[in-house]
């Protein structure tokens, strides 16, 4: 049943997002095309299109960021819609456990966010290659430089040196993303306990819990890290590279990963329990 839940939830989201993605990609291609024309014009010292390109660049950058924020918000809103509004009468009477429903929607939310990240970053990358805009050109330059230093480190210290932290970094980013989604769903499930203004209460819970979490987690990571490393001494990147060990970095990432994993699990379990016992459909 979990597979079926994922299938339908994904279909539902994708129908909505395919148009958005196509628009963003089309806009990027348009901007690239325009940049191509601008390049030809600039060769002849005609600067007419520069302002337009500047504006377009701004739009594309904003769109790329907005796409990711929007995806997250839509994912959370769809959870609310399918579980708590009238649609909930259909969803909650299906012969599936709340666990399957929540986990399935966790996974789909996560996948949609990843796809959005890929689409937005892909468009930015593509545009940075084509663009005549100085912002995009320097963006592309810094990407190239990062890649170069990356290769240099591999040459000097071997691939495994950089591989582990890289994997940890990606894993941590993933678990934080997944955690954000479980956190959003938890806020929805808390908000629906109230009889009126469920969405408003969702947001109130979101802000409240977020505040508590930010404070507590920075505290925790810092404290736990000091158990294993001396922040001032060990977290100097140059020192680490010299000692041929990114271990302090890795340890910080591992602690962060584990904490976020536990948090995501706690959020999910709490969401499941609340929807099981305290479902309050209007």
């Amino acid at each position, binding site marked *: 049943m979990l597979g*079926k839940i994922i299938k339908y939830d994904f279909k539902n989201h994708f129908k909505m997002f395919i148009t958005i993605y196509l628009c963003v990609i089309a806009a990027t291609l348009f901007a690239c095309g325009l940049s191509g024309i601008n390049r030809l014009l600039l060769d002849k010292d005609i600067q007419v299109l520069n302002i337009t390109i500047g504006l377009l660049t701004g739009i594309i950058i904003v769109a790329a960021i907005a796409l990711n924020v929007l995806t997250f918000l839509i994912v959370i809103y769809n959870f609310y819609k399918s579980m708590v509004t009238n649609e909930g009468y259909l969803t909650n*009477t299906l*012969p599936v456990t709340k666990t399957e429903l929540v986990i399935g929607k966790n996974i789909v939310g996560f996948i949609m966010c990843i796809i959005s990240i890929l689409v937005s970053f892909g468009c930015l990358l593509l545009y940075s290659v084509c663009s005549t805009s100085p912002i995009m050109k320097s963006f592309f330059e810094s990407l190239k430089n990062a890649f170069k230093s990356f290769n240099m480190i591999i040459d000097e210290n071997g691939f495994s040196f950089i591989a582990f932290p890289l994997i940890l970094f990606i894993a941590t980013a993933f678990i934080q993303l997944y955690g954000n989604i479980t956190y959003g769903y938890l806020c929805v499930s808390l908000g629906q306990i109230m009889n009126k203004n469920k969405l408003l209460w969702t947001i109130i819970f979101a802000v409240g819990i977020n505040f508590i979490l930010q404070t507590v987690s920075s505290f925790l990571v810092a404290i736990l890290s000091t158990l294993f490393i001396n922040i001032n001494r060990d977290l100097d990147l140059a020192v680490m590279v010299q000692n041929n060990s990114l271990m302090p970095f890795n340890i910080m990432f591992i602690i962060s990963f584990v904490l976020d994993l536990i948090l995501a699990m706690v959020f999910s379990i709490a969401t499941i329990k609340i929807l099981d016992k305290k479902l309050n459909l209007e």
Partner: protein
Amino acid sequence: MNELLSLNGITKAYGANTVLDNVSFQIKPGRIVGLLGPNGSGKTTLIKIINSLCTPTSGEVLIQGNRPGIESKKIVSYLPDKLYFNDYMTVKELMEYYMDFYNDFNQDKCLTLLSNLQIDVNAKIKTLSKGTKEKVQLIMVMSREALLYVLDEPIGGVDPASRDYILNTIINNYNPEASIIISTHLISDIETILDDCIFLQNGRIVVYNSVEALRMDKNMSIDELFREVFRC
């Protein structure tokens, strides 16, 4: 114990407000039961409890001897009095959704009902009128070969001709192993198809009897009896 549905001492309170007060009754298979009562009598809460959309404060619900859960959801087909669609689906996609999640869904029956009520299978649900949407929802629920159907206002927003067709479908669907609970205000329209009726007042059962026995006893229709019992 061959009861299909069994409620024992069901009480539901929201703080100081008691919506259901020690409600107990059993329904055997093969019965069509009317759940009747004015607004605020606790009907909707009772229906939600049977469908695990609400947890009782105390008391026990057993469906075929099981507590409400996945096993009971497999054999209970519920029609809420709200429209519960995701507007993006077409009628066909909704049907496929039902087929996917419910093993007892009868696709042929569904297609026949849809065509008899002239509903285009490929139509986007969003584009249908409210009455048609309600028909679609009812058709999906009735196309399942469930053991307990819980219909909350099945004919409320539907035109009289379709109403007749729907009531005919319910009679035609009759299965001596399955039971139907119909909660409605339109008593005079459905009272000829009922076996029994339950009157719910302020969260308590005030009448639970066979409709024929009530007619013989009181010399009045169930509709008239309702008006008398719930006189304002």
